[in-house]
């Protein structure tokens, strides 16, 4: 079963007025390890309040380490029983390690501690010096789905909702009644793993079609719990009727309106949904018309099975069609090449012979590209792959740039040339700080390089609005926190006034065939 993630995170309207950053964070990962496909989604809410002055970093670290920890844990189970308490402990350990690492690189400044003392007194400052994790305090919500199970973990406030195919919305984890009036448990408290609330459902017991993870800024924007729980059925309806791309585009606007008219707090929402959603459209339309209770499970299952069978049939047809089309294209190319060669031969014979003084005629490379070495599969099927008009491997020189959508070999690296001088090599999972970019303030992490669906991206972790100009003079777009910029050759990212980076690809200085391959392609 394939699952997809849609997410958005918006800065609270009250935070905008007071100058506080968006302290929420969201991350997810889909992976295929052996026979275990899985999708993990994590959402975190950095605490407000003076003592938690680095909670923005704390929440960002939380979602990154959690996605990895959950993936590692589930992949390593190999049929063993899932111990969510052990997983909780591993997540907390990974977060504390990440916080300590951040602190080692960026110790508390006099300004940070001075501002805290002024706002909340000496005791508050001492508590943070004694226990630095406090500065990074954040909550955590996790959902992860594999072929065998779906797991949920929650620490602190926020909401996890599951939505069934008939729109029924439920909470897999009961509310923590101790948490009233802005109170929350946190990653920064001692033995935080003991405070995790967890649950697991086997896929054989039936799965929801949609899981929603939201920070408390969302529930607090609604007049009542009933008004909030309505979102389950509504998001399901939007996904079925308008599709995930429309929702993905609209989600930031929906959440921005919620914070303005509701809580004023940061809002982050992550949706984990089955890709087969449109199948049950008939059933749910019937449900929303008032006959929800009359739709039996068997009807929905039958609809889904039929739809799956139809989709598989269509897929087989498309594959057959595609194979035929490729054959035709090859035949056509050969015919055109032959015709061109004949024409050239004729022209040369009739007119060119007297003008050529023994120099060979070269065909200029239209899309120069570095060919892979030692990996015969890379490059196959790309626009230039196997084309007789493209120059042979290596003829494009050391600074060749791949075109958008072309696979790049392991011996090519992505570099960003900085307007302030210098360059930055961008590799998967590399955190980028303001210092790396030559900016004068110290914010870590400012951005993160990551590979999503085989594509290299730069994720904006800051509150800066980047202006991204795509290659070949495309229309610039604005990139805000948590957005991903696809790193195509020629892309120019303006981080701030006067601070620009230009993306390029080149051969690695030393040959290293151990790495994987990345594909430079447009974002999903």
């Amino acid at each position, binding site marked *: 079963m394939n699952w997809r993630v849609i997410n958005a995170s918006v800065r609270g309207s009250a935070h905008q007025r007071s100058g506080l950053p968006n302290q929420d964070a969201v991350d997810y990962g889909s992976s295929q390890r052996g026979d275990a496909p899985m999708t993990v989604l994590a959402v975190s809410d950095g605490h407000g309040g003076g003592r938690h002055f680095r909670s923005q970093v704390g929440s960002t670290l939380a979602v990154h380490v959690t996605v990895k920890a959950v993936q590692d844990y589930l992949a390593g189970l190999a049929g063993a029983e899932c111990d969510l308490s052990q997983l909780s402990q591993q997540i907390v350990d990974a977060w504390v390690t990440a916080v300590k690492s951040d602190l080692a690189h960026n110790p508390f400044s006099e300004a940070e501690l001075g501002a805290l003392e002024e706002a909340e007194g000496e005791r508050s400052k001492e508590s943070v010096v004694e226990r630095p994790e406090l500065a990074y305090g954040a909550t955590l919500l996790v959902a992860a789905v594999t072929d065998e199970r779906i797991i949920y973990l929650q620490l602190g406030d926020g909401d996890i909702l599951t939505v069934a195919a008939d729109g029924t919305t439920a909470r897999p984890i009961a509310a923590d009644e101790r948490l009233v*009036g802005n109170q929350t448990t946190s990653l920064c408290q001692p033995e935080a793993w003991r405070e995790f609330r967890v649950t697991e459902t086997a896929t054989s017991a039936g799965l929801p079609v949609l899981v929603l993870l939201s920070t408390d800024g969302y529930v607090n924007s609604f007049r009542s719990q009933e008004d909030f729980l309505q979102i389950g059925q509504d*998001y399901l309806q939007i996904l079925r009727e308008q599709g995930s791309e429309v929702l993905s585009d609209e989600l930031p606007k929906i959440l921005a309106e919620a914070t303005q008219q509701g809580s004023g707090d940061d809002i982050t929402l992550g949706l984990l949904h089955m890709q087969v959603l449109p199948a049950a459209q008939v059933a749910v339309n019937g449900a929303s018309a008032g006959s929800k209770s009359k739709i039996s499970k068997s009807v929905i299952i039958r609809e889904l099975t039929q739809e799956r069978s139809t989709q598989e049939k269509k897929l087989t047809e498309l594959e057959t069609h595609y194979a035929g089309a490729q054959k035709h294209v090859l035949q056509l190319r050969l015919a055109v090449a032959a015709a061109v060669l004949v024409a050239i031969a004729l022209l040369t014979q009739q007119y060119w012979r007297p003008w050529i003084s023994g120099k060979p005629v070269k065909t200029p490379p239209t899309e120069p590209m570095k060919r892979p070495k030692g990996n015969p599969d890379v490059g196959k099927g790309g626009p230039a792959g196997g084309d007789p008009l493209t120059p042979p491997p290596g003829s494009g020189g050391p600074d060749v740039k791949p075109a958008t959508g072309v696979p790049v070999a392991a011996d090519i690296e992505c570099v960003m040339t900085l307007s302030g001088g210098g360059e930055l090599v961008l590799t998967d999972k590399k955190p980028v700080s303001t210092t790396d970019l030559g900016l004068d303030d110290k914010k870590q992490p400012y951005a993160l390089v990551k590979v999503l669906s085989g594509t290299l991206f730069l994720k904006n972790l800051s509150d800066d609005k980047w202006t991204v100009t795509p290659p070949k003079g495309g229309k610039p777009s604005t990139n805000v926190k948590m957005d991903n910029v696809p790193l195509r050759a020629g892309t120019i990212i303006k981080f701030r006034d006067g601070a620009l980076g230009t993306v390029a690809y080149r051969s690695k200085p030393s040959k290293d065939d151990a790495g994987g391959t990345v594909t430079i392609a447009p974002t999903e």
Partner: protein
Amino acid sequence: MAVRPGGEYAGRPLNIIWMLDCSGSMAEGGKIEALNNAIREVIPAMRKAAEGNPEVQFYVRAIRFSSGASWHVATPTLLSEFKWVDLKAEGETDMGQAFALLAEDFRNIPSDTRALPPQIVLISDGKPTDDWKGALQALFDVPWGKRAVRQAIAIGQDADHETLKKFIDNIERPVLRADNAEQLVRYFRYVSTAVAVAPPGKETPPVPVAASIDESAW
């Protein structure tokens, strides 16, 4: 997009409760008049401060205590619609009964409320005349009583600072002592506008520098 997910949006409620001493001693030295005036003066300032937080719905209520305790303003009233009816002073200082009345009220608030922690402002000029300790503990035993932002203003030198300190139960939040009408307005304005500017959970502005107590009247 045709559907806006979810039901109705609304700002978060924040309840402000004034717990006011109306014992006989408040009739001396014009203290009760000064308190009534301070409240009238502070309401517009609170409204102005609240404009900076349009996502919060501020509700005000008031408890009076003298011989017994009762709600002076029982219905949570939106700050924008709040009107003050003057208090009169007579009788004992049954502060404990005021704590018990509020504890009972808080006990009925559903646990899944999305309201912000309430603010309680206790203003008194004397020593409690009833069993206040048990009642205060009862207030602390209710989640909303414990979570509330509790502040206290002592009027004059006869006020029982120790009791007020125990009510606040936070050494970083001092008892504010008002020795004249001007200081009462100043401190009452401070505690009232501070919560409107920065609702609980966010940073609060520092306590204002105390005015000179040379002009002590109480």
